[in-house]
């Protein structure tokens, strides 16, 4: 464990005045000395963390969320927008409950930078927000091969307008038009997601639109299907998805809708399609790099007991921007957020961190308008390597193949996950 979990002298005096040597932070603390925890980004990880900070810490802390958007569109289930089973409105969430039920301050702005010396966030309007602890949950950023227009070649990997752009492009296809999508090099957000999308689109074109001459071609930079291999292979075969591994995109031509890519050792291959859905390789969000939190990698190294940066004090990173063996996804982002919220509350009240955290990942993947599969894993803390690892690598990841039963159960899962995160 790093020394990040120790209070410095200034903090020690401050929290001593709060009675922090006891196991609680008292309600009677003056507002001016109540610890202020700021959560940056309010997707699955950030929203959960802010909620649970107040649920467990209550009036002993002040919590502020800084998030540029007043409405969040869930990436989870968003592939169902493409085949008319859901709309983005149905997958949209506001922060009313965070404000009204949990007394969280919402600031709808972006964070430009972090002044770690004065412990202040610098916002898009140049205003500053002081923090005692800041929790960054900013999601992902993309690594583009070249400068092209996302409205012409959408990624649809951040849900919302991008999802609807891709939806409109798919609906503009006529029989005989091709759909080509690409899968980024792992790690990326939602490991089963691209395979799921290929299944959804192929089923939609073939079985709902009735197309017999259109192709769905899937170019994967990875050497094989990285999760639920047997299930996705079966669905690819059933729906006619043309899956090609070891295909790395090198250039995107958004005018002619042409991809250039390497396939194995063969360079300079090209493919043109009516609809291109390139999901670029991914890295931590810009604020992580701007604050110097990556240590030279693409994601932020952290103490997995607290999610505190191993590089800078009092900055915690949860969700897709952090570096660990856990997948980058909403359900486990929710799980990480609770470990982080608990750890921050323990640190602020001078209690030792919990040494044996567990997180869980569960994810249903719709593979048609009537069937879904699921994938599950439980992770434990590995103190030797400061990582979260599979509890039992001979058992996990566990999966269940596509079925109509799983499709119905998927909505029960998502409703409770959404409620635990946003309600």
């Amino acid at each position, binding site marked *: 464990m790093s020394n990040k979990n120790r209070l410095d002298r200034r903090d020690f005096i401050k929290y001593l005045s709060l009675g922090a040597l006891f196991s609680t*932070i008292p309600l009677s603390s003056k507002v001016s000395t109540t610890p202020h925890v700021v959560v940056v980004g309010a997707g699955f990880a950030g929203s959960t963390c802010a909620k649970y900070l107040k649920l467990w810490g*209550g009036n002993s802390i002040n919590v502020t969320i800084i998030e540029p958007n007043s409405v969040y569109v869930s990436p989870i289930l968003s592939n169902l927008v493409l085949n008319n089973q859901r709309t983005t409105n149905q997958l949209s969430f506001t922060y009313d409950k965070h404000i009204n039920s949990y007394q969280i301050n919402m600031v709808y702005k972006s964070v430009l930078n972090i002044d770690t010396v004065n412990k202040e966030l610098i916002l898009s309007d140049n205003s500053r927000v002081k923090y005692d602890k800041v929790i960054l949950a900013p999601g992902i950023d993309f690594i583009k091969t070249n400068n092209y227009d996302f409205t012409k070649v959408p990624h649809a990997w951040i849900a919302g307008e991008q999802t609807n752009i891709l939806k409109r492009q798919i609906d503009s296809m006529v029989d005989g038009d091709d759909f080509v999508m690409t899968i980024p090099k792992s790690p990326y957000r939602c490991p089963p997601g691209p395979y799921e999308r290929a299944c959804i689109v192929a089923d939609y074109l073939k079985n709902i639109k009735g197309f017999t001459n259109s192709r769905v071609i899937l170019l994967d930079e990875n050497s094989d299907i990285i999760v639920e291999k047997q299930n996705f292979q079966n669905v690819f075969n059933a729906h006619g998805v043309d899956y090609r591994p070891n295909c790395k995109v090198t250039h995107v031509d958004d005018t002619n809708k042409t991809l250039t890519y390497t396939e194995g050792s063969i360079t300079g291959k090209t493919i043109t399609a009516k609809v291109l859905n390139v999901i670029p390789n991914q890295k931590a969000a810009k604020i992580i790099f701007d604050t110097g939190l990556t240590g030279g990698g693409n994601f932020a190294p952290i103490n997995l007991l607290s999610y505190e940066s191993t590089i800078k004090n009092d900055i915690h990173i949860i969700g897709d921007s952090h570096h660990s063996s856990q997948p980058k996804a909403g359900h486990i982002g929710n799980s990480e957020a*609770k470990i982080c919220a608990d750890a921050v509350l323990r640190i602020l009240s001078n209690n030792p961190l919990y040494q044996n955290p*567990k997180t*869980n990942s569960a994810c249903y993947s719709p593979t048609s308008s009537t069937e879904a599969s699921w994938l599950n894993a439980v992770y434990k803390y590995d103190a030797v390597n400061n990582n979260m690892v599979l509890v039992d690598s001979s058992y996990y990841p*566990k999966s269940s193949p596509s079925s109509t039963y799983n499709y119905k159960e998927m909505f*029960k899962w998502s*409703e*409770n996950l959404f409620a635990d995160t946003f*309600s």
Partner: protein
Amino acid sequence: MLYRKSKYLLGLTLISSFALIGCGGGTTVDSNPSGTTQNVTLPTSFSVNDSRLLGANCAQCHGTNGNSVNSWDSIAGKSDIAEEFYEDENALMSAVAHGFTQNEVNKIASWLKTLPKNNNSNDDNDD
């Protein structure tokens, strides 16, 4: 069983509702999650609770503090979780259960037993 009765309860209206732990006279505010007014009681202070932290792993599927918003079982206030944990016939629950030790399950069960059941959540306590 955590899921056993789900198929009989599909007709339940989805009600987003809360019953949060009151840790002793905290500030109570109104929330209006889905048209029904619910009270959320915030605690006055933070208390270390390892069992609660482990049990928070249940919430994604069984609702915050064990109160499900749909026909998946609520587990707040249940007294028999530890006995049934590893034997659930639901495949996903069975998969998740594999990841927790008996000691952890006992801790989670002891915490769940203390949680208030929300009137609007699916009550499977006769299971």
